[in-house]
Each structure stands twice: as structure tokens, then as C-alpha cells.
């Protein structure tokens, strides 16, 4: 097994021989199978329809076929990396580095902005996004931040509200905007 894999030209010196069962992909497989099991169970809770009404195609048929296909494909997943490496493709290339803490912070920032958007209103949410995200990503030129946080939301408001007649949530600005 290891002899075969050592033939691949792409594998760098000192790099470990690929394992037949890829550990990360095994975890992904388990997660996907658990999701499929949950979704299959969900299909058993749907209303039953008489064959005459469903024209012999029950509502569960198509989703169950797709879940079945996903399960079959997913079962191949833990072994894919082994064969991919043999053919010179590194499936781990994009996930070899750890996710940066900044990515988690950014995701949290986005969740915070969307979570507050109904209370703040659309316009203030845009202002918050234009202040919070650049600051989070290290922007400290206050004049630039100020100009961006004021002018950009105004421009977006003009395009969508005045140009495209989209109704923005007033939120905290309701006393002013009416």
C-alpha cells in the first residue's frame, strides 16, 4: 500500500503516506450520515396521503431517493482522499491551515449585526456594519471609517429606498423617519 502511494510525484519529501481512512473526512461522513438519518426520520412524520390523491407518487418519495443517494455517496467520502493523493490531487490543501480567530470573530460580528438589525433598523445596521467590521479587521484611520460609515449607507439607502422602492426597517430611527 505504501509502495503504491510513494509513486505519486506530487507528494513532498517527508510528507506522511496517506492513510486509507481519512480522519477528518470520517468525521464529516459521520456528521452527514447523522443529518441524513435525522432528515429520513423527519420524512416519517409527514402526513400520509392516499395513493389516489398523491397519484401514486407520495411526497416522501423524491426526498427519500435523494437522501439515499447522499448516504451512498457519503459512505465513499472517507476513502476518497487516499485515491485522490494517488492521482496527484491534495484534497487537504484548503483545510491544512487552522481557521484564524479573526474568521470566528468576523462570523460573530456578522451574526451580531443581523441579530440587531430588526431593533436597530436597516440604516443603523448598515452604519454598524461599516464601523464594526473595518475596525475588527484592523482599520484605524478614523477619517476613513467615519466617511465610510456615513456616506456608504446613505448611497445604499438612496439606491434601494429612493431608486428601487424597497422599504427599509426604521428600527430606532422610527421617530425620525416616521
Amino acid at each position, binding site marked *: 500500500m505504501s509502495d503504491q502511494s510513494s509513486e505519486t510525484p506530487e507528494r513532498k519529501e517527508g510528507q506522511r503516506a496517506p492513510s486509507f481512512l481519512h480522519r477528518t473526512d470520517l468525521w464529516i461522513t459521520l456528521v452527514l450520515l447523522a443529518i441524513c438519518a435525522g432528515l429520513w426520520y423527519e420524512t416519517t412524520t409527514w402526513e400520509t396521503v392516499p395513493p389516489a390523491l398523491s397519484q401514486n407518487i407520495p411526497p416522501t418519495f423524491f426526498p427519500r431517493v435523494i437522501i439515499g443517494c447522499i448516504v451512498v455517496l457519503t459512505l465513499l467520502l472517507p476513502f476518497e482522499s487516499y485515491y485522490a493523493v494517488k492521482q496527484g490531487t491534495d484534497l487537504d490543501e484548503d483545510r491544512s491551515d487552522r481557521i484564524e480567530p479573526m474568521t470566528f470573530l468576523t462570523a460573530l460580528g456578522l451574526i451580531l449585526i443581523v441579530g440587531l438589525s430588526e431593533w436597530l433598523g436597516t440604516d443603523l445596521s*448598515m452604519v454598524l456594519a461599516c464601523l464594526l467590521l473595518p475596525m475588527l479587521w484592523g482599520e484605524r484611520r478614523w477619517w476613513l471609517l467615519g466617511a465610510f460609515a456615513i456616506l456608504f449607507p446613505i448611497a445604499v439607502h438612496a439606491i434601494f429606498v429612493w431608486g428601487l422602492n424597497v422599504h427599509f426597517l426604521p428600527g430606532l430611527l422610527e421617530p425620525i423617519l416616521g
Partner: protein
Amino acid sequence: MEPILHGIALILDPYHFFLIFAGVVMGVLVGALPGLSSTMAVALLLPFTLQLPPIPAIAMMAALYCAGTFGGSITAILINTPGAPPAVATALDGFPLAQKGEAGRALGIAAVSSVSGGMFSLLVFIVAAPLLAKVALSFQPPEYFALTLFGLSMLASISGKSSLRNLIAGAFGVLVSTIGIHLTTGVERFVFGISEFVEGIHFVPVLIGLFAMGEMLNQSQKLDAAVERVSAVAIKLPSWADFKLIRWTVARSAVIGTFIGILPAEGSTVAAIIGYNEAKRWSKNKEEFGSGAIEGIAGPETANNAATGGAMVPTLALGIPGSGTTAIILAALMVHGFRPGPYLVQNTPHFVYAIFTAMFIANVLFLVLGLPGAKLFARITLIPRQILWPAVFVFSMIGAYSFGQSVFDVWVMLIAGILGFIMLRHGFGPAPFVMGLILGRLVEEFWSQSMILFDNNWLRFFESWIVDLFLVFTLMGLFGPFLFRQLNVLMNKIKPEGRVLED
């Protein structure tokens, strides 16, 4: 001829022309920005176009798509940073030529080659569309089912490194498309007590999240990357000697690019790489490749732009997207009340010709704008990431919200973005998921209609030669890459001496 003239007349309206112009400017700017793809830009543009009539809306998106492919070559040549994946091959010779002080010549060749490729593919479509419409006359639900199934099978090769992961992502997309009320029986499926799910999950917030937010989270990992400054260049059209040198490369790559674009699920990037390889293979100056050969710029640039026109053929005429961007254009067509496929060409040929006229104009416009404005467009890379990506988030948030004027859609967009980032990290591409989401509804609908038509006897599917043909294509789409690989291994075993010498 009449539908062609009607289509041209529709596009020559000044307002429509202005929107195409805006689409071209946006496309070149977005194409020039590394990280921002034309796919993402078309996704973000979709909510804007909801207020527009269908023809200018789709024309604007198509113009952005064409121009975005060219825009990527500007930064590829000037700063060795391809703004979009199809421009990767252009950088191989474009940047070395720019380093020799001939950036203007490189940009000129890229622009002229792009336009030639784009124009050629559009001419091919004008010839091919009526032929497809003739075939379309015999299409019934079983044929549509087989065709859509074929489209889904092509997910295996749409993008990324893993066909298996593409298929899994696509299948999940199909599964998400079943959320909501089942049309035949009225049963609620996968609603989980959430009232917003009853009407199903719309693909607009999902695709904005997958393409824009997923990439934003990806960019948050690259904040340390330096931004390169752009030097001033004088852009010039290729000389007669340059024309003579690249003419056959352009002709060859135009054919290659159009053909690859027409193949469902193959994109501009594949076309560009093959265009580059073929340019090198046929060149008399092979040794110059990699150090500034103008054929090395003309080959990929012609091919990638020819592929954009080619990719619109299966999208409009068969309802099967030729790439991630055309998947979004397909979604936009559906949002605007059209059903892409053979009947689109048959019943509204003027609409199809209007879109291709818009792409034709876009090709001319990006030549007119690109030559004098390339330096200016390239300077957009100087916008700090800390400002650019929050702006993308704001557009995504407002775009998702404005679609149904609902905060729920913004949550859908955000969750899709976070899932998209995780999926991409593990090799599950967003494009197959979106294609599954779009085509999934159609597959189930056509399957149900066919089974009712056949009185539940699925063997009757095989009575139609069109169905049989598409089923063979489907099997080839699913197992073809594997079989070709095995064939390759077998061929290598047959010629062991050759391998030893090579090794």
C-alpha cells in the same frame, strides 16, 4: 431573421444600453479585484434587477459576466494577480511581458483576443439557437426530466478537485429544494415548524450567502496579504505583426473556448487553460512561453471569453447552467418568470437574441472602455480590504433583505454564507449546491408529470430516443471521468518502456 432584429431593437433602447454599460463597468471593476468574482457580482446584482423588466435585467447580468472575465486579465497582466480564476493562464505570459515594459501591448492583445473570442461564440449561438429550437419541439416532461437529470450529473465536473464532493453538495442542494409544500399533495416537507419554510427556501438569499459571505469569511484569513501598487502604462492596440502572429491562436482558441463553454458545467477557467496549452503546442516559439509570449496571452484570453458566450447556450436553450455564473443567470430568469429551456428559444426567440445582442455590445464596450481605462480599473485593487468586504456585506445584507423584504432572508443568507465557508474548506463547492437547488425543483416536477403520463410505469421512459440519449450522457457525466482515468492507467501499463524513459 425577424426575431434577431426584434431582439436587437429591444436592446438599442437608450435605458437598456445604459444598463449594459453599467454592467460592463461593474464587470471590469469586479473582475479586476482579486477575491471578488463575477459570479459573486452577478449574485449581488440579482436583487437590484428585480425591479427592472426581464430583458434589461438579464442583459445587464450577461454584460457583467462577459466584462468580468476580461477584467480579471488586467490585474493578471499588471500585478500578476488574476482578478478571476479564468485569468490565471493569462498571467503566465502577460506579467512577464509587462515586466519587460510592454504592459500596454499585453493589455491590448488581451482585450482584442477577448473580444474576438466573445464575438465568435455569439455568432455560433445565433446559428445554433434555431437548430436547438427545432429539437425542442419534441420535448415533453420525460425529455425534460432526462435533460435536467443530465444537468445534475454534470455537477460531478463543475468545479473543484472532487467529483464526489460536488455530487454530495449538489444532492444537498436538491434536498433543500424540496423544503416547503409538495405541489401534488399539499403536504409540508422539512418545515420543522418554521412558518417561513412553508413556501420553500428561495435561492436568491442562498446564493448571495454562498458566493459573497463564504468568500468574505475566506478573506478574513488573508488580512496580512500585501496590496500591490500599479504602475502607469500606456495601452496600445496590437501591431499588424502581432496580429499576424496571434491570428491562428485566436481562431483555434475561439473554437476551443466556445465548445468547452457549451459543454454543461465546464467553465471559462478550463477553457483558458486548454487555450493556453494549445497555443503553446502549436506555437513555433514554444521556448518564449512563460517569458512573455503574446500567443500565451491571446490563447487563454480568447478561449475564456469564448466560453462565456458558449456557456449561455445550454443555460438559455436547455436550462442547464454552463458555469456558476450562468447558474445565477438561470435563477434570475426563473425569478423573472421565464422557464429556461428549449421553449424559451422556441416561444421567445427575440428575448434570447436580445440577451446575445447585449453580450455583443458588452464585448465592444469593454474593448472601448478597457483600452483607455485599464490603468484606472487596475487601481481599484488599492481599495483596502477593510473597506471593500464590509461594503460587500452591506450589499449582501440589503440584497437578501430586499428580495422578500424580510429579515428571515438575511438570516438565510448569513447561515448559507457560514455553511458555504465550511463547505468550501472541505472541498464542497457552492456552485454544485446552487445548481442542485435550482434544478432540483425541476427534476421532481418533471418526474411527477412523467410518471402520471406513463401511469406509473417508469420503463416507458426508455421509449423516447431523446430520453435514452440524455440518460447515456448522464451515465457518461457520472462515470466518464473515472473510466477515462482507468483507461489512462491501462494505456500507461501497455507502454511500460515509455514510462521508464519518462521517469
